[in-house]
């Protein structure tokens, strides 16, 4: 049957159905079903969050000043951005202005997290959708060295001997039968297009990324007092500044510690500049004819905006927020998270109920309801406990469907980069144009930003560029922090409203963060000093959510349409595009999987 969705996509579920469950190399669990036509082109896609999450309900009645410590535990990768959104929401509700030092320190911590998350995502979770590590064993290390020097002449690790050593290490690892981290691939698939020397370069950089990622997070220990699970504080940051303080471990922030922070920021800057960004451009150029996966990003994108230079001025956001609809890059609409008509969540196709015949309405997060209701549609194949094929005409996901004024939007680094590019933010404009020049030069193409950005490759490129922009912004935040401390301002926390006796009887607030996976919002209602309602609308909910009451499809489903598969039994293309969103289903939904199957079960019907 062919259906035209209101947001402009054509769905046809008449062809063969392919089920991928679980989708591997993501945080959390999800299932994806697609229909392919006679030419193995995807014509229908169904994204199902298979886990339940109830963070909202367990926060009810807790002390709002403690919420950050709970939300930090939602999942293993998004700790800091949830904690930050939480303290921002409480401060917004109680009208607490944090000291300038605290503002800058939080800015640096958020960017460390984004940088780290993007690097780990690309090398650890996404690269293997493009890179074949088994093929790297066939590489001539001299060819890898030449490739490295041509794409990034400033990276010091580039000799043939260096690449030969890595190749030997990899060979030993593979021969010992411990394919380990590399074991769940479709390494014989013709969907892999890199020559062996590029595969070896990427695997080598994967190891370099692992070496470096542990360095950058040390900044969290310095500012957050501890790691893992750095501390956050409503009203500021939990570290004191004492520039004359002693050098003992655990001392307050002093010059020695700040110099260490600067050194790590500089190292991060060099890595994203010389390794991460050039890798994405070079790998992308070998896939120049694989410009699929854009989906919703070609028309509708959203972000709340973040990284302001001035604490009280939203217009100073270095990644500005807004909404673009229908691909109109020249018309950026403002987004107001407080307006009950704008951000709303729908549960028509989600395993929740709003009760009282309100199944098809959208609820603003302040009025949000998290009440689970699991039922399967009449068209479901299989049994309740072993679903062979889900019925997308009924409820089919544990993820809700967020909409902006009823419109499905994509969120994430790509959305932020499309918004910033469309708004002519100079740094972003230069970055994108430079990257495209290099891509076009390597690939022999002449793609424009409008053609190249709304693709799977564009999504992966935007994430790399954003990581590097974060490194640049951290340098600026650091300089501002040192200047402010030198001016004699040592305050890091505003505790004037620490005591709940100073709070109004009722208050509500919203905390927004440009989280690595996209715009994140926490909405809180406080009554009599306790949490009355708490709703997190997380980026992966925007992207992975099911259809809404009107039949608009979300970003995951849209991104897969029209993609040809080399071999439907090896769903490399589905993984490649869905991974490009960096899905965090642990945040979008939440429960463990009872089976340990790592390799996705692919079923074709």
């Amino acid at each position, binding site marked *: 049957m062919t259906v035209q969705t209101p947001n402009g996509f054509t769905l046809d579920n008449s062809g063969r159905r392919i089920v991928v469950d679980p989708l591997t190399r993501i945080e959390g669990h999800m299932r994806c079903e697609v229909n392919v036509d006679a030419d193995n082109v995807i014509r229908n896609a169904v994204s199902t969050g298979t886990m339940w999450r109830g963070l909202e309900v367990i926060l009810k009645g807790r002390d709002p000043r403690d919420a950050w410590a709970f939300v930090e535990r939602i999942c293993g990768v998004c700790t800091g951005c949830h904690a930050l959104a939480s303290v921002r929401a409480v401060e917004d509700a109680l009208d607490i202005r944090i000291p300038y030092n605290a503002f800058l320190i939080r800015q640096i911590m958020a960017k460390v997290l984004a940088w780290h998350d993007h690097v780990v995502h690309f090398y650890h979770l996404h690269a293997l959708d493009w890179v074949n590590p088994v093929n790297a064993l066939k590489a001539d290390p001299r060819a890898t060295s030449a490739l490295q020097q041509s794409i990034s002449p400033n990276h010091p690790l580039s000799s043939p001997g260096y690449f030969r050593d890595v190749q030997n290490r990899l060979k030993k690892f593979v021969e010992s039968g411990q394919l380990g981290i590399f074991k769940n691939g479709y390494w014989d698939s013709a969907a892999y297009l890199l020559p062996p020397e590029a595969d070896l370069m990427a695997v080598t950089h994967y190891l370099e990324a692992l070496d470096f990622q542990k360095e950058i997070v040390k900044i969290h220990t310095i500012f957050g007092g501890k790691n*893992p699970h750095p501390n956050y504080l409503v009203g500021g940051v939990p570290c004191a500044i004492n520039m004359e303080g002693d050098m003992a471990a655990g001392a307050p922030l002093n010059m020695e510690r700040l110099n260490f922070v600067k050194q790590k920021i500089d190292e991060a800057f060099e890595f994203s500049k010389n390794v991460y960004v050039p890798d994405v451009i070079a790998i992308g150029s070998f896939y120049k004819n694989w410009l699929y996966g854009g989906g919703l990003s070609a028309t509708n994108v959203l972000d709340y905006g973040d990284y302001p230079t001035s604490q009280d001025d939203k217009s100073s956001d270095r990644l500005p927020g807004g909404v673009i609809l229908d691909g109109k890059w020249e018309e950026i609409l403002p987004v107001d998270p407080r307006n009950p008509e704008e951000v709303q969540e729908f549960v028509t196709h989600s395993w929740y109920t709003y009760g009282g015949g309100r199944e098809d309405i959208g609820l603003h997060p302040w009025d949000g309801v998290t009440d689970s209701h699991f039922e399967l549609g009449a068209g479901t194949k299989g049994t309740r406990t072993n679903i062979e094929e889900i019925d997308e005409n009924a409820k089919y996901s544990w993820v809700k469907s967020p909409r902006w004024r009823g419109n499905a939007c994509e969120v994430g680094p790509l959305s932020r980069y499309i918004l910033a590019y469309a708004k002519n933010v100079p740094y972003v404009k230069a970055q994108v144009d430079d990257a495209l020049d290099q891509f076009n030069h390597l690939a022999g193409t002449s793609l424009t930003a409008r053609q190249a950005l709304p693709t799977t490759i564009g999504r992966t490129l935007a994430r790399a560029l954003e990581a590097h922009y974060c490194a640049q912004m951290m340098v600026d935040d650091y300089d501002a922090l040192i200047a402010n401390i030198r001016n004699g301002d040592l305050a890091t926390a505003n505790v004037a409203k*620490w005591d709940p006796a100073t709070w109004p009887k009722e208050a509500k607030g919203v905390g927004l963060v440009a989280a690595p996976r996209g715009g994140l919002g926490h909405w809180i209602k406080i009554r009599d000093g306790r949490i009355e309602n708490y709703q997190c609308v997380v980026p992966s909910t925007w992207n992975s959510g099911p259809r809404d009451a009107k039949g608009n499809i979300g970003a995951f489903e849209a991104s897969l349409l029209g993609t040809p598969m080399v071999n439907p039994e090896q769903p490399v293309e589905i993984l490649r595009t869905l991974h490009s969103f960096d899905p965090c289903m642990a945040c979008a939904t939440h429960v463990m999987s009872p*089976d340990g199957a790592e390799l996705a079960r692919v079923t074709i019907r």
Partner: protein
Amino acid sequence: MLSKASSPYFGHNSFMFPDPLTDLASNDTTILVLGIGNILWADEGFGVRVVECLARDYVWPASVRLMDGGTQGLFLLPYLENLAGLIIVDAIDFGLPPATIHEVHGADVPATIGARKMSLHQTGFQEVLALLDLRGCSPRRLSLVGVQPVTLDDYGGGLTPAVAALVEKVGLRVLDLLRQDYGLDIAPVELGQQLPGLMAEAVTQAAYESGRPDAETACRHGDERLLARLKDAS
């Protein structure tokens, strides 16, 4: 009653929270006792609670580090490289009766964690061990003390009574391992002695479990479909 909110400033305890400027260099003389799991998922929080209890009740020498690893996966790499010893405490599906203590050592540890994964954090942690191996910096000695959970599907819940009753016992087993494998005798704290906590006050076992909203406010049912599959598998 409002639970006591975390105080606005936190003490820094360097033996528990390694100082990035100085302490990580000493990994090769350190034994790490690492509790992993998600405290929001009932018995999944077992490992973290054992380490929380050890940190509270004993006086620790500089050569032993205690850590609440949560579900952090790759974020834990810097603390795991080149260790003299690693003792992991976790709730694991060993295929044993609920609330049974089980122990494995050396090469059996990654295999055990990988064999029957119930939880997200175990996928992540098995990879972390594989990466240590690939990069030649695995711990010189490795042990896992685990417990077979009773339930994991109670989101927002604490340890079940049967598993909670094993926290102290498994803590004592960790002390035995430290004595037997590393020659360390760990002394209990003096009466009334208060040590800095391992985690934010709000998520310590007592505060977390006593502050839980009632079943009326916070629904207690999870994902029926997955729960049914879990029962099928067992």
